[in-house]
């Protein structure tokens, strides 16, 4: 086929470009998008106080906040798995009146400003909250200002990511495997545990990673519901925010730590779970 005249001219000038097959109209915004995402991270690295970094990073406060962040994000992910996966199953595999509404409500924390989520949690589970007052009166349990409170706040914000991800995987998975299992004598729960769960494991893993990442970076709901106390409720994002007010260098150092840990964990999980299937 003979290319049109204009293309011939262009092709004559730059024969290599035509063959690559990436339209310029896509390439330019794509590169722009990449630069936009990477530039702030690069800036963080350029402006990092490298000379004082060792000193910043060896301070016990940093390790305390990091440890708390990891413990809370992991606990929140575990909690999300325990109650989120069954919720996803309910949404994907059963039909009940108002299911669409329930699904919409589940995704609400995704769009809710986290601070509002924190306030809502206070109103529900706070010492004077709708449920919290009974927890306090009957069991003497108060959740705000505790590490448990941090885990709950993070779970509230992060669990929808897991639920949505797992529900999507469940919908894509063939429900007939569950049927096959029941014809072999498995109860619906056994079918779920021994057949469905292993089948959707990659989706669960992906959802858990998303939830973990979201929990690790959680700020608004945490500071609103659980407050800010070093070692108990001050996670890395809170430490970064408050350090930014008095000591930006320390804030950058903390951010670098958080960044490095996230990259390490996500890369590690990716190799293990996400590329095998």
């Amino acid at each position, binding site marked *: 086929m003979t290319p049109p005249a204009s293309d011939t001219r262009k092709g004559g000038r730059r024969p290599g470009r035509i063959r690559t097959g990436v339209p310029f109209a896509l390439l330019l915004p794509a590169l722009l998008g990449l630069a936009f995402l990477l530039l702030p991270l690069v800036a963080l690295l350029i402006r990092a106080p490298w000379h004082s970094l060792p000193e910043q990073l060896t301070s016990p406060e940093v390790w305390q906040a990091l440890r708390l962040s990891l413990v809370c994000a992991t606990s929140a992910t575990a909690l999300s798995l325990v109650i989120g996966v069954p919720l996803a199953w309910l949404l994907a595999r059963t039909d009940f009146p108002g299911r669409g509404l329930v699904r919409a409500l589940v995704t609400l924390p995704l769009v809710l400003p986290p*601070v509002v989520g924190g306030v809502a949690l*206070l*109103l529900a589970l*706070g*010492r*004077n909250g709708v449920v919290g007052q009974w927890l306090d009166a009957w069991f003497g349990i108060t959740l*705000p*200002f505790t590490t448990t409170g941090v885990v709950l706040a993070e779970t509230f914000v992060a669990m929808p990511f897991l639920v949505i991800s797992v529900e999507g995987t469940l919908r894509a998975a063939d429900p007939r495997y569950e049927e096959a299992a029941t014809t072999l004598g498995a109860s619906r729960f056994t079918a779920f545990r021994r057949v469905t769960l292993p089948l959707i494991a990659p989706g669960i893993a992906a959802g858990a990673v998303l939830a973990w990442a979201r929990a690790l970076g959680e*700020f*608004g709901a945490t*500071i*609103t519901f*659980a*407050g*800010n*106390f*070093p070692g108990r*409720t*001050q996670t890395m994002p809170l430490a970064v*925010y*408050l*350090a*930014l*007010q*008095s000591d*930006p260098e320390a804030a950058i150092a903390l951010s670098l730590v958080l960044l490095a840990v996230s990259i390490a964990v996500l890369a590690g999980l990716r190799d293990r779970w996400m590329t095998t299937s």
Partner: protein
Amino acid sequence: MTPRTARRARRTLPLTGTAVAALLVLSACSSSDDTSSGSSSSAPGAAKVSGTVTVFAAASLQETFTALGAEFEKAHPGTEVVFNFGGSDTLAASITSGAPADVFAAASSKTMAIVTDAKDNASAPVTFARNQLAIATLPGNPDQVTSLKDLTKSGLKVVLCDRTVPCGAAAQKALDASGLELTPVSYEQDVKSALTKVELREADAAVVYKTDVRAAGDKVEGVDFPESADAVNDYPIAPLKDAPNAEAAKAFVTLVRSAEGQKALTEAGFLTP
């Protein structure tokens, strides 16, 4: 949490506002200065003020400044006052990073110093008010808190401001001066958050500003304590160097320092400088 932002909708148009202000200022300059005295009720000798004036102010000034802003708009028709209330240090940090603001009113000299150190102020800051700490307790003061020392009682949930914000620094100063050890349940990121925790009854008490206790009405009960005299905060105000609307900035500072402004501040519980 992002700094509290008043009149969020209007903030989306700072460029338009600035452009309009610039045009108005230009037209005011091109016409004869003699005719400018007409309708304006501002201080004599000031140029005609118009356009948007953006004020970054400490969270504790929210109620007073919002009222003064309305006054300002009434006194200078065609102006619009846009506030950004938040922790003084956050605001200072955004100003030094180039946030478009005309006036900065801080809750401590230390946070104002962040701006003056960066030479971002147009003229030297002046103290326009002082604030004293008070204890906010639950309505009716069920825990019978009468002194700073009572806050150290075990079982009492106390929230303080984080040491990086002025109210936290002041509270720490007062505690140090009286030799008290106090372990709060939380170091809140600004004074309003600390007060909210008591309003929601999640905390039993908070050390906040007297003005905040007054603004909260009957949702909290205030307890004064003598040690607060050792930790009085100065509130400095300054017009900013890169102010998009320098004339209006000056006029706003003037209003805050005028008898009318001082009256509003005193009514809110501030001490006069």
